[in-house]
């Protein structure tokens, strides 16, 4: 299930090597310019590297590498500012499908996800941006032997041109029961509205007007929410690893800058006020990284909430301090820092804001009976 340290190190090395060639600024700009930010041939290349099967079971063509290894890989992808929706499709979407799909549908989809021939996204957020896993707005109705879906889902990175979209909806005539459905690309009634995001990635919203969906799982709302929360937690942890990779890279760029930039006849980094601010940033990042890997190895609800809150704060502090310590050049689009700043600013809230994670942690600590 889990990779040993040596294999993990090989994975990190190969990710670094790959990113050095395939994730240059020119490549990133070309991917951003693609209609949905995910050219199929590049996605299949990630499959050839084995990365798209990291969270999939071995019998389905995956590697079942374990979350700590997935985090170490994704941290490198975050450092390289990968544009493709790796976390959204290859972790969040793929792991939910792997957990929920059975039989023929499983045989049809999972090996194809691992190779990159197909791609999924889970439309986890509601149209209003909320994370109401146990109370979606969408409803299902019976249509012969199948189901039709009605309702909207909110913006999810990587959803554009995905071969399959995972959606939840209330089961027909029973608001207490939820179903998880697969909506295939091109299904009549399913409209995918793609948009370029502020950080150069792409996301999409989904509108379903009596769109056909294949039922994957159904059950009482609470039981279904538990399944969805497990999958969401995996995505959130790996998202944090990616964000921390980006934050560390932004920190290193800033460190290098204050060492070389001279004012008043000496490097900025010779000023104690600059040194202490950099230390604070570094310490926060290292703490959050330790928490991320610990949560990946052994997740609890408290840890996951704490991780979300800390990484949101680290992301926000990192981009803010990186700009301030650079000065005006840190605010330009052409200087390399700008890409990191944009990515971090979006990442801070993508899987819930710091405030929403703290709400959750407060519920766990203060509302539970002791």
């Amino acid at each position, binding site marked *: 299930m889990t990779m040993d340290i040596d294999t993990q190190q090989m994975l990190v090395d190969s990710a670094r090597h790959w990113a050095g060639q395939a994730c240059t600024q020119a490549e990133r700009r070309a991917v951003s310019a693609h209609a949905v930010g995910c050219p199929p041939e590049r996605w299949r290349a990630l499959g050839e590297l084995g990365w798209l099967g990291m969270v999939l079971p071995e019998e389905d063509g995956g590697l079942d590498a374990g979350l700590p290894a997935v985090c170490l890989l994704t941290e490198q992808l975050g450092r390289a500012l990968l544009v493709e929706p790796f976390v959204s499709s290859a972790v969040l979407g793929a792991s939910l499908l792997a957990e929920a799909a059975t039989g023929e549908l499983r045989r049809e989809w999972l090996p194809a996800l691992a190779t990159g021939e197909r791609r999924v996204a889970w439309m986890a957020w509601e149209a209003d941006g909320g994370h109401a896993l146990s109370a979606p707005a969408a409803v299902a109705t019976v249509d012969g032997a199948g189901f039709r879906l009605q309702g909207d889902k909110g913006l999810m990175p990587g959803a554009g041109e995905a071969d399959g979209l995972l959606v939840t909806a209330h089961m027909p005539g029973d608001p207490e029961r939820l179903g998880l459905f697969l909506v295939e690309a091109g299904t009549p009634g399913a409209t995918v509205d793609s948009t370029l995001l502020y950080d150069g990635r792409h996301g999409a919203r989904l509108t379903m007007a009596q769109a056909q969906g294949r039922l994957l799982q159904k059950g009482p709302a609470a039981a279904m929410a538990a399944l969805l929360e497990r999958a969401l937690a995996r995505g959130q942890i790996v998202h944090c690893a990616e964000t921390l990779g980006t934050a560390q890279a932004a920190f290193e760029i800033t*460190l290098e800058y204050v*060492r070389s930039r001279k004012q008043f006849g000496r490097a900025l*980094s*010779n000023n*104690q006020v600059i*040194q*202490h601010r*950099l*230390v*604070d940033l*570094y*310490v926060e990042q*290292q*703490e*959050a990284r*330790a*928490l991320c*890997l*610990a*949560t990946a190895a052994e997740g609890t609800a*408290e*840890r996951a*909430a*704490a*991780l979300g*809150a*800390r990484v949101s704060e680290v992301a926000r502090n990192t981009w803010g301090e990186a700009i301030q310590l650079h000065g005006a050049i840190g605010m330009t689009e052409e200087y390399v820092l700008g890409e990191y700043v944009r990515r971090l600013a979006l990442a801070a809230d993508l899987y819930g804001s710091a*405030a929403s*994670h*703290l*709400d959750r*942690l*407060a519920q766990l*600590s*203060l509302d539970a009976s002791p």
Partner: protein
Amino acid sequence: MNDYPDLNHFRQDVDRFLREHLPADLRQTVRQGQQPTREQLIRWHEVLAAAGWLVPHWPEQWGGRGWNVRQQMIFDEAMALGDAPELNAVTFDMIGPVLMRYGSPEQQRRFLHAIASGRQWWCQGYSEPNAGSDLASLVTRAERDGDIYVVNGSKIWTSYGQYADWMFALVRTGREGKPQEGISFLLIDMKSPGITVRPIVGVHGWVVFNEVFFDQVRVPVEQRVGEENRGWTIAKSLLEFERLKLARIGENKRRMARAREVGLSRWREGRRVADWPWYRARFADLQARLIALEANTERFVARQMAGEKIGPEVSMLKLRGSRLIQLWEELTVDALGPEATPLSPEWLLDQAGATPRDALAGTASSRRFLARGYTIAGGSSEIQHNILAKQVLGL
């Protein structure tokens, strides 16, 4: 050596031990945030020593059990959450290990067993009125008179000097070369003629600090540790001991439990404090920081368990752990509101015969001030920042 293969079982044993053997009066003193007396603390040391748990991190040769760092941390956390007092680090974590490493065989025989028995209290004579973080500028001098050093000068901020039997002190024995080069490390009997201890009452109402004056105090040369003028090396080595403990995970969890208890038991304007949005947001923010600190500490524990050097990066644990304690105390005071404001110094200092008011509220203000010491003593937060900037970031 690990005499408990199952650490969960170990934790349960420590919890049970505390329930059965921590004296009720001391537990109450700690819980109420009052200052324990020397007599109370020595009695507790003896109970721990009898169980083999006073210096379990020491090697067996000196009365310890050779516990590894993970087991120690579990033990420390159980002690903190069980309302046991913090043990005097100067005695058990500093002078003991210094003597093991630098002491003469005679010094080791003379002091280590006495320390391990729990009956001998040590204080640290480092800071002086003009030498705080810049310790090397100290001026208390020791002049040779045959086999005797004659010590003159003063030390200040000497924690628990009023309880101490012995002091280890840095004194100036030479004026050549760099300031660090003329310093020696002496062991001084606090009962020596010429020593005056002046307790300094803190804003917290406790007597932690003391000023110690030396007037022609005679110290035998065999009470010098290491070579003359080479004391700085020993002083610096102290910074390497027990660095992981300085995350103060247990002490932070103790304060989190208290902040939670206050939030759940107090009401403001008809609403439980724990239901006010401001309290919830701050509590969760501090808890998230604590969870992160704990994960980060575990990283260093794993490194040490694997026999690797933990390096200067470990300074980040003290930096974060000490600050977090202050933030918990601030939250507790804010949650108590006006309940935390009355002052009763006699109640703080003299628990015998005092009527405990509310155990949570009575000393919250005192504790908030006590907590300020954590970011000053043992290398201030500014010094920790400097260490990280220079030695880790290479600035």
